[in-house]
């Protein structure tokens, strides 16, 4: 993970963990605060803040002494959201190049045919 030091670090950690969950790199147990802090070279309190935010969003659960783990449906939900975001971005990019929705749909169908 490459950290951009000009943006809040805890937000980037939230994003990174969400990506790891949706890719399936993290299945159940989220790394301990200390392990991730040492991996990324950041203050453990910054990692703890990111975990608290993910807990607030209902993505992970944690229990004192037992660590932090991913909630059951989080992966599917995160994946769905991430796919939506990619599609939105894709459509946005093509529309800004002057393509209509109809043309975009046509293009996507063409991909399907090739495969």
């Amino acid at each position, binding site marked *: 993970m490459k950290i951009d030091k000009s943006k809040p670090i805890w937000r980037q950690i939230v994003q990174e963990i969400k990506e790891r969950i949706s890719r399936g790199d993290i299945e159940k147990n989220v790394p301990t605060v200390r392990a991730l802090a*040492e991996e990324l070279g950041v203050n453990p309190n910054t990692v703890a803040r990111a975990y608290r935010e993910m807990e607030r969003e209902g993505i992970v659960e944690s229990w004192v002494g037992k660590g932090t783990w991913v909630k059951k449906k989080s992966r599917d939900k995160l994946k769905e959201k991430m796919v939506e975001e990619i599609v939105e971005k894709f459509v946005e990019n093509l529309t800004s190049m002057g393509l209509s929705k109809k043309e975009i749909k046509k293009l996507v169908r063409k991909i399907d045919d090739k495969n």
Partner: protein
Amino acid sequence: MIKIKNLVKRYGDVYAINNINLDIEDGSFVGLVGPNGSGKTTLLKLIFGYCRPTLGEIKIDGSSPGIDLKSTTAFYPEYDSTYHWMKAQDLIDWYSGFFSDWNKEKEKNLIGFFNLPTHRYVAHLSKGLRAKLKLVLTLSRDAKTFLLDEPLSGIDPASRANITSGILKAYREGQTFIFSTHIVTDAEMLFERTIFMKEGNVVIDGESDALREKYGKSMDQIFKEDLYG
């Protein structure tokens, strides 16, 4: 909790510290950032009790810096505080005897992490290795407060990450760290809070991530572009 009120330190006609007010919560990891001569070292010395304020006061958990607080506070000086005629391990063993909070396991871990050849004479160690030896002397304690004065000064860029990782490894929840530096980029991710100093004053002080949000810049960019550029 460290409480600093209306602190002034004057040397002759020079104000090294010019009316500073600060509260530092227990368990916070603070970066004290500023160019040479901005008052960082003087502030750390005042907190440790190496020198006394001209005006104002410092209270650590309600008491003034002094002999009692030295048993719970660890200081990393910028100058070479080692004895060159000793072997590194002998120096560590001798030094550890002064502290009831010495943690032998931390000592071993840090020596291993820094790859410190402790069988050698201190005189035969490079400047970088001597800095690491000084860090072993400072960080092997289970102190409550750690005052690190320029631990990156004189360290080549390639070794700085090893130093900051070692400090991060030694840091325990609940301990207060104040880390002074004019080399910001290699250390800023350790700082929960960053205090910028200029000419004896605190000019910017905030939670590092909140400052990143506010300025859209890294602590290093604020240091170079906004304050001293």
